[in-house]
């Protein structure tokens, strides 16, 4: 059988050259696709100390190996570069239709190097690849950009990855919008694209992809579909999407209310939780090949924002702006979401930056004379005004556009209120309200303070009991779930305490991070109904039958571990230190103002101990955080 390979488009904008790069089977075996391949490319191509906004940075889009197939939720694409926000690896994952179109055009990735002299966009129509002037597009938001390009190319099906004004203005947390409503949001990749004068990448493919072993692959696709539909989370996720989490987070007191001052914002259950989903949406919207459709089509029928309709009510803006900035109604949050989508801003970092500014205003550290207007909690007009100032770098927006870490260096006495880990703003989970594998993941996440790289496959938000605080979280599923959980028996026994129904957090973190690395490399979505149903054994069978490359559950997970370690090596090369993996002081020094009953604060000694156990589980040196030589040899990363 012919060896399997995928092709990447390699564009140098400095000299306007386009090459085609082949990723061979041996590399795919080690890095799978998607996030794995982009990690390898960024590690190899971006040298130490490269300016993230300079010509030397490289932006890589890499589709998952299954993206474009009918495997449920296989639609994801990883985008990576050195992050202008953190100075570490910047990487983000997105779905929609862009990746599938790229694959149908005959490519699994796009590498962008150098810098164009003039604004441009890249058009890919099968093998017809062109760099086109974007002079007329510069200054447009992402929606207008999409409409313009579709008209110019006379093709309403062309999929567009684009930046809005935020990316053009090098806002450090600018997103790359994926179609009108989705995004490669985190770590500021939109600014990298803007720094290269690249406004958009338009993709259309009329070809198709066929599995190497069609019969075996289709059988696995069918089994996966059934497994996902049988997940206990499937129906609930289909109905509520990620809004499902809005009630348990409230119950835990884990919402980032008013920049992490309160865990249970007043009126939350009545006006921002999943209870209100049906008031604003009657249907879901899916990415290609996804049966879940976790996003909602929102229609605002009355009030100040009457007539607004968009794909929204995702937990990220609802918690970020709804709790973080205390915007107390869905229509206003939807309008704010629209602004972020159009201007191209990462909603987590944008919400956190504004919540930071609002708290400084509350404490008198930012005055109305300096801002130009008042910044009261819950003021949607002020939030919208500030978002536009950030995206266009006007007024105080120019300071907040740097992210909270850098902004806090410019505003006296503000550092304590800058809620980030390694420069990346922390999203929705307050670890004082809920300590779990998931919240712990903000510390170990390869890209900084973020919750999406160590989703625990058996995370269950119904329970919050830590019998051994910090070390464990509750595992309350039945025996059948335990038995069917796709994990080698010896690892399962080391992670789960069956009698006590506990999960070992440091060990589960390692497993989860490796598994998410696999997911982001094969193109699957990490939503709970999928993550719970499709484990490494199924992925190995899918991978082998689709590519003809012989993989086992063990080699799949080893690849996930290799990818995580390689990303870590990039960060270490850039100077990351173990002490950087720490929560802001606020979580250790004070309880939330509304946590009158428990007055919960984190214990820094215990957090450090869990980090030590995590490093041990990873095979990394406990003092330096550097992977051991044995580990690097085991993963083939010692060269």
């Amino acid at each position, binding site marked *: 059988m012919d060896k399997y390979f995928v092709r990447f488009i390699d564009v140098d904008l400095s000299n306007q050259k386009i090459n085609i790069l082949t990723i061979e089977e041996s590399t795919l075996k080690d890095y799978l696709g998607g996030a794995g391949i982009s990690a390898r490319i960024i590690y190899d191509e971006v040298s130490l100390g490269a300016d993230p906004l300079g010509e030397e940075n490289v932006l890589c889009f890499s589709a998952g190996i299954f993206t*474009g*197939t*009918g495997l*449920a939720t296989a639609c994801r694409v990883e985008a990576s570069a050195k992050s202008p926000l953190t100075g570490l690896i910047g990487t983000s994952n997105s779905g929609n*239709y862009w990746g*599938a179109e790229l694959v*149908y055009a005959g490519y699994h990735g796009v590498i962008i190097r150098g810098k164009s002299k003039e604004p441009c966009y890249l058009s890919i129509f099968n093998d017809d690849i062109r760099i086109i002037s974007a002079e007329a597009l510069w200054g447009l938001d992402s*929606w207008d950009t*999409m*409409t313009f390009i579709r008209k110019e190319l006379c093709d*309403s*099906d062309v999929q567009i990855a684009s930046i809005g004004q935020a990316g053009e203005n090098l806002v450090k947390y600018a997103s790359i919008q994926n*179609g*009108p*409503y989705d995004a490669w949001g985190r770590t500021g990749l939109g600014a990298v694209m803007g720094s290269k004068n690249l406004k958009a990448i338009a993709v259309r*493919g*009329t*070809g*198709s*992809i*066929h*599995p190497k072993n*069609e019969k075996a692959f*289709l059988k696995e696709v069918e089994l996966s*579909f059934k497994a996902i*539909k049988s997940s206990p989370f499937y129906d609930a996720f*289909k109905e509520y999407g990620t809004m499902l989490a809005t009630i348990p987070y409230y119950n835990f007191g884990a919402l980032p209310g008013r920049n992490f001052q309160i865990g249970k914002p007043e009126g939350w259950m009545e006006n921002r939780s999943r209870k209100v989903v049906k008031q604003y949406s009657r*249907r*879901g*919207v*899916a*990415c*290609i*090949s*996804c*049966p*879940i*459709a976790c996003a909602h*089509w929102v229609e605002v029928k009355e009030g100040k924002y009457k007539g607004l*309709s*968009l*794909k929204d009510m995702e937990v990220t803006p609802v918690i970020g702006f709804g709790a973080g900035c205390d915007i107390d109604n869905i229509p206003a949050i939807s309008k704010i979401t629209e602004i972020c989508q159009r201007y191209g801003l990462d909603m987590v970092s944008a919400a956190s930056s504004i919540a930071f500014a609002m708290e400084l205003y509350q404490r008198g550290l930012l005055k109305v004379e300096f801002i130009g207007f008042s910044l009261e909690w819950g003021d949607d007009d002020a939030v919208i005004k500030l978002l536009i100032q950030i995206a266009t770098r006007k007024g105080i927006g120019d300071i907040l556009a740097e992210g909270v870490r850098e902004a806090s260096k410019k505003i006296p006495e503000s550092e304590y209120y800058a809620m980030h880990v390694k420069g990346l703003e922390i999203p929705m989970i307050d670890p004082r309200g809920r300590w779990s594998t998931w919240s712990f993941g903000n510390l170990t996440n390869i890209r900084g303070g973020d919750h999406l790289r160590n989703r625990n496959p058996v995370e269950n938000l119904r329970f919050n009991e830590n019998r051994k605080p910090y070390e464990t979280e509750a595992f309350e599923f039945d025996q059948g779930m335990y038995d069917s959980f796709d994990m080698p028996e010896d690892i399962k026994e080391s992670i789960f305490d069956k009698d006590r129904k506990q999960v070992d957090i440091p060990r589960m973190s390692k497993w989860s991070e490796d598994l998410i690395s696999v997911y982001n490399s094969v193109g699957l979505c990490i939503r709970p109904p999928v993550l719970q149903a499709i484990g490494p054994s199924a992925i190995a069978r899918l991978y082998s039958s689709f590519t003809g490359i012989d993989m086992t559950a063990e080699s799949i997970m080893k690849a996930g571990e290799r990818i995580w370690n390689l990303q870590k090596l990039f960060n270490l090369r850039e100077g990351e230190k173990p002490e950087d993996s720490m929560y802001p002081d606020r979580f250790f020094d004070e309880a939330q103002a509304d946590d009158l009953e428990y007055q919960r604060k984190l214990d820094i000694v215990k957090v450090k101990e869990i980090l030590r156990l995590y490093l041990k589980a990873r095979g990394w040196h406990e003092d330096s955080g550097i992977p051991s030589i044995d580990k690097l040899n085991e993963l083939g990363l010692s060269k």
Partner: protein
Amino acid sequence: MKKVIKVNTEPCIGCSLCSLTCSVTWNHAYGLNDSHITVNRNDLAGLFVVEIFDTCKRCFKCVEICPSSCLEVVEIQENLDKGGHNG
């Protein structure tokens, strides 16, 4: 009487699983351009319209896979048969 597919486009979530399943069933490859059913998507407006072509082979795999119950197998008189219809 012949079996055809009746389309109720309203609950469509725009996943294109119908089109992908058709494509791999009849062309042995996944794609959106050579199947006998398609989802016309206006993504900015969130509108999806399912269209079945006259070339439909009536294998009904798309009906089985549709996660939103947009597609239904119905029987019609043979002289009305156009492969499928948007009901």
